[in-house]
């Protein structure tokens, strides 16, 4: 929870950025494409995390937001030949506006129910894209031949990496402000936040709009990377699962966590490909996720932090055993 950047942190980040920038020199294009996917997944996971990880309002319908962004720019650029530099910003704004319009009423309701409404939204839009104006959305088959922004694995790799890093940086700065602290507090005890004189509706709406903006950016750029979009792959429970699991496995509400998780899960999925070529990979994938989640709900980030703390202070271990109060949820 500390917001201090030590020189060691700075050094680690610089090293990380340097490795990532040099990577195209050493690895194959195939690997780069995997990393590109991981970068986008990290963006989606960070978007999910800023809403759900922080405030505790779990969204099962994040592809709904991603889909608004992706479809808007795909339709504008493919059907109406709008230049990408206009269609993407419009897509992002549409995601924020559309998402807010639909989700805002849902923020009134509490955790479990919120999750269900979002899930229902995703299924709703999945069915709607197939039947309403298929001349625009392409119906079940979606749209292919969407203009791509860059050509080749290397430029796309650099672009997606920088996009991810930029978003991470913005979210990181936001999380360090008092606003970020207040959002964390909502997950711990929402009543006490309004009991501190803060409008939780306003805070949740802000978290939601940031989350929607990031989802919109990610979705819009992703469709211009892939060049195609189809409802089944997008509004899919496996996709929801991958996003949520990445964020949670990495460590919710940490920014670094969802990035870590996205890379971990993407590579796990890729390394399983030779062993299990089809969707049965999700068996191992899911088991790993489940065991990690039940063992440490705070994710890999917390496990690493625990290990580090454990090594640093083997003998100063007596501070955490007096009466535990306020596990977040009581009454």
């Amino acid at each position, binding site marked *: 929870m500390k917001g201090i950047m030590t020189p060691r942190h700075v050094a680690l980040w610089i090293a990380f950025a340097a490795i990532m920038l040099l990577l195209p020199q050493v690895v194959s294009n195939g690997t780069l494409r995997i990393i590109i996917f991981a970068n986008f997944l990290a963006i989606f996971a960070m978007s999910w995390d800023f809403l759900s990880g922080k405030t505790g309002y779990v969204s099962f319908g994040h592809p709904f937001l991603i889909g608004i962004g992706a479809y808007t720019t795909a339709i504008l650029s493919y059907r109406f030949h709008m230049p990408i530099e206009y269609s993407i910003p419009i897509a992002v704004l549409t995601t924020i506006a559309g998402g807010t319009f639909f989700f805002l009423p849902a923020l009134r309701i509490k955790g479990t129910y919120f999750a269900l409404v979002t899930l229902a939204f995703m*299924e709703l839009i999945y*069915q709607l894209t197939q039947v309403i104006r298929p001349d625009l959305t392409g119906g079940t088959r979606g749209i292919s031949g969407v203009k791509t922004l860059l050509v080749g694995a290397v430029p796309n790799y650099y672009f997606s990496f920088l996009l991810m890093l930029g978003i991470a940086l913005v979210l990181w700065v936001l999380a360090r402000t008092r606003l970020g602290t207040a959002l964390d507090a909502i997950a711990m005890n929402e009543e006490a936040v309004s009991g501190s004189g803060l409008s939780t509706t306003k805070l949740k709406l802000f978290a939601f709009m940031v989350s929607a903006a990031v989802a919109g950016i990610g979705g819009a750029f992703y469709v211009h990377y892939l060049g195609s979009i189809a409802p089944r792959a997008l509004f899919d429970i496996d996709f929801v699962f991958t996003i949520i699991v990445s964020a949670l496995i990495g460590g919710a509400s940490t920014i670094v966590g969802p990035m870590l998780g996205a890379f971990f899960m993407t590579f796990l999925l890729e390394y399983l490909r030779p062993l299990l070529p089809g*969707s049965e*990979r999700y068996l191992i994938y899911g088991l790993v*996720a*489940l065991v990690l989640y039940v063992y440490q709900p705070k994710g890999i980030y917390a496990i690493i932090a625990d290990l580090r703390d454990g090594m640093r202070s083997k003998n100063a271990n007596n501070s955490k055993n007096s009466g535990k109060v306020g596990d977040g949820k009581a009454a």
Partner: protein
Amino acid sequence: MTQILIQGFLLSGLYALIAVGFTLIFSVGRVLNLAYGAYIMMGGYAYFYAVHIWHLPKTLGFLSAVVVGAIAGILMYRLLVKRLEGDQVAVEISTLILAVIIQAGIVLLFNDSSKILLPIVNGVWHVGSTTITKNMVMAMIASWIILGGLLAFVKFTHLGRAIQAVSMDPKGALISGIRTDRINLTTWAISGALGAVAGVFFATHTQLNPSMWVSPLIIAVAVVIVGGIGSIIGSLIVAHIIGFMEIITSTLIGAELRGIFTMLLIIIVLVVRPQGLFGRGDL
């Protein structure tokens, strides 16, 4: 018109059956078991394996579905839900992960192509211009019997009343000497078995495939949410609302729009009246 009425009742019966096991867990444990759809799928596959591959009699097919469902329920409670100690968000997330795992497991065992489950009872009846499969009638009758049995079980048996007590006030039940842990375990087993039985009928109605669990899950969720927690009668009514609306939309407007009404109903009811239409209003 008759067609809508008859098919509406048949489909609603099936939906009520699908929802009842889910309602049970939600009212007792106050947790959303998102792996409930997986019971339905496992029930369908267990029956398929027993009857179509091992050529066992249909009764044994049902029995194997019941056993598989009950065991899945017990394992889920013991290994997962109990550990998470009523943390609702954690239960939701982990049961969702579990559902995806089970889906992948099914792909591994049976591959991901769709399978047709033959009707449990063959034959059709003709009522005017409408054709009714005996299989759907059987599903509806089974649904009514099971629902009636469940109501009687909850009302008249000692165990049933204990389940009800736990659903109303877990702490109070604990103080009155009810072993809530045992009750929870039993409820999870019953819920799993009910889901699996519903799955056999559902699979004969549609078909077997590894992603078949999502739509019955959403129907179950809709029925419970819209009906209101802990209200078996409410669930029954909502199962009929949803069933009829689906039939009406698919006959009058178009089959692709079938599910949209269900989704809209969930969203509108949750936002406007979160306690459900017939609920106790405690959430």
